[in-house]
């Protein structure tokens, strides 16, 4: 009886929409498809999930990197797999939020072709300028952009940092000169070489540059200030409603059995609550928010809509 009560309490605590418990959901090994080549944060998150799925819940899982075409190759592949819980995708903005507007045709539907299961977390980008440029605030930045023009680096056309740059253009009524790079590392290199005046990139990844006084963040695109650098104001506080988050979540092909999806969801939540995982994600500047599968699906649909005009603007202008 006591045991029954305990189980019941645990179930209520962990309950998603369907009653489920974290644990193994299939006897087959699970493939977590990653839209990037090995080595990035996304890939490492997938590897952490795979590791804990197996060590804590006995669910065998491997990481399958299928990079290409802004994540659409991986998403298309996963959409075509059987919805038996053996193929999942570590999704993000690129294939789900950006691609539907960025590309003229997509082989999949970001909502109808997938079962969006669990939201993992998001990191937020900030606007960085040269510390010795005399720009110390967003107002200074706008001033310089209006008078002399300003060049900013992004991690690529249609990337989240480019879209943030566009949002700033539109909201602040300026026209920054967009200089796309292939990833943020080369952009930061040019910034440090002094040829690039500003760049947008994830706050946490630039921790050392900020501390060494090599890059000055002037505004954060998060809903709230970051615990890492509480002195950096958000765009919102400065009167500009710009929130652009780089989210990651776990999805599968459309039609996964709701009970199985609930098990996967709860297993992911259980892993995300483990201390080593919490610490590691904090290190990478990723904030996890618990979200039900329904909320996550609505979130994906919502970001497609809110971002569409920004992506369209980025696409038309190219630069």
């Amino acid at each position: 009886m006591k045991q029954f009560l305990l189980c019941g309490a645990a179930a209520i605590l962990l309950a998603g929409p369907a009653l489920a418990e974290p644990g193994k959901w299939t006897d087959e090994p699970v493939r977590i498809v990653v839209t990037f080549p090995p080595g990035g944060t996304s890939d490492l998150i997938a590897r952490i999930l795979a590791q804990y799925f197996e060590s804590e819940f006995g669910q065998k899982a491997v990481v399958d990197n299928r990079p290409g075409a802004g994540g659409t190759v991986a998403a298309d592949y996963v959409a075509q797999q059987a919805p038996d819980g053996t193929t999942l995708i570590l999704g993000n903005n690129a294939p789900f939020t950006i691609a539907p507007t960025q590309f003229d045709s997509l082989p999949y539907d970001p909502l109808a072709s997938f079962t969006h299961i669990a939201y993992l977390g998001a990191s937020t980008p900030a606007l960085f300028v040269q510390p010795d440029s005399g720009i110390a605030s967003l107002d200074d930045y706008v001033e310089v952009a209006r008078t002399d023009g300003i060049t900013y680096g992004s991690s690529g056309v249609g990337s989240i940092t480019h879209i943030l740059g566009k949002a700033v253009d539109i909201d602040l009524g300026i026209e920054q000169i967009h200089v796309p790079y292939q990833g943020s590392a080369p952009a930061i290199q040019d910034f440090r070489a002094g040829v690039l005046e500003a760049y947008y990139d994830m706050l946490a990844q630039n921790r050392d540059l900020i501390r060494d006084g090599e890059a000055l963040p002037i505004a954060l695109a998060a809903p709230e200030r970051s615990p890492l650098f509480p002195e950096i104001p958000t765009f919102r506080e400065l009167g500009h409603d710009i929130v652009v988050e780089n989210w990651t979540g776990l999805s599968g092909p459309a039609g996964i059995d709701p009970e199985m999806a609930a098990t996967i969801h709860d297993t992911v939540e259980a892993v995300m609550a483990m201390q080593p995982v919490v610490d590691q994600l904090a290190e990478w500047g990723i904030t996890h928010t618990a979200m039900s599968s329904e909320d996550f699906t609505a979130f994906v649909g919502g970001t497609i809509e809110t971002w569409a005009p920004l992506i369209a603007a980025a696409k038309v202008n190219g630069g």
Partner: protein
Amino acid sequence: MDILTGFGQGLLVALEPVNLLYCFIGVFLGTFIGVLPGIGSMAAISMLLPLTFHLDPTAALVMIAGVYYGAEYGGSIASVLMNIPGTPSSSITCIDGYPMARDGRAGIALFASAVASFGGGLIGMVVMAVLAPALASLALNFGPTEYFAVILLGLVAASAVSNGSPVKGIAMVVAGLMLGTVGVDITTGAERFTMGIPEMRDGVHLVIVAMGLFGVGELIVSIRANAAGAHQNAIDYARFYPSRKEWKAMAGPVWRGAGIGSFFGALPGTGQTVASAVAYAVEKKLSPNRANFGKGAIEGVAVPEAANNSATQTAFIPTLTLGVPGSASMALVIGALMMYGIVPGPRLLVDHSDLFWGLVASFLIGNVLLLILNIPMIGLWVRLLQIPYRYMYPTIIVLICVGVYSVNNNVFDIWLTLAFGWAGYLMRLFRFEPAPFLIGFVLGPMMEEQLRRAMLLSRGDASVFLTRPISGTLIAATVLLLAWSLFAAMKARRAGRPALALSDE
């Protein structure tokens, strides 16, 4: 003095039994993976990544590095024996290595490649130990204008790589440049020549082009030659070791190749393939034996091997000291370090000096291990050539398919490789050379990207290329090289010799 104490301290770290063991595992695995066509260090390192979670960071880094440069040793083996580049950067080694094998000099070619790799690796290591901080700050001063200027210099040097008709050579460079434009335009996001195929949005992968042109193309040629009753390659068992003359011929190319390789390796964003391509092009301009390049010159094997191996060592400079990965494999190294909470950057040399010097010292040990591993194996590798073609060809095709598939885990790439195979066959049939094509393909996209970025940053002012000191100097060197080529061509013409056609026909 600081360097010597640092290196000594590193040697102690590298000689710890655990690190020694993982160094051996790394280089052994690297060589093996390198031999397999298309499966490069990238695939091997990503497979090893989960394993490294359980290791000490130094041991993990030593092992990953071992795989990385070990693959460059192994990569040349398939290039020499079967004209199939084991790694993308060893495709340049095919150009002279395979003709040597066809002459029955496969053993010498492999020996030359191992020795040149060793020399290149050691020089790269010394460069890394002595110049890491200085090179890191030089690389920091390399903006888009400088990158454009240095690649332009490389491309002008490369225009001399063709052996046959100069018109065909230039046509091939241009064709390579054109193929390089396929995919999403990095600057505007516009799709170029993708024909609506999603897989083409990222352009054509170098592995696919190299495998198709060299590997599959060669197979088709051989099958036809076989049907016509040709014999398998003769092998001169008596001669695995280069003669005194050949040793001498290799010395200069190894130094020059390693110098060029160290430089390009230290620049994030260029890497081994560019290093070996430029080194080969430069050597072809300088070598007294240039007439034999492309027909089995030992210098043509030594130069790219010295270059790509020194580049694999110096590639760690920007990765570790700036946190800027020059290649996908180096991004993996950063990823692995991040798992340990070690952030690559200027402070790594100070905060984790054990790790840095341990790694540098492991390069010495790893290269010695590789030499010991490779030399006795030469006989075994060469014997592979005696496997009857009816067994060897299907095996090679399977290996190529696996290798190409492993790049993006995508079947489409296999079909694309087949198409390039036929293109390679036709090119051979009509005597168009693959080398300038490959060099144009490697350098073109990078040159375009940097040019357009430089123009954006200067707000459309093209004079930056001349006013910034490093790029100005490089542009001046390019102009001099061009002028010298023209002068040499004119002189040759006056002497009654066809200008750029350096060889047959």
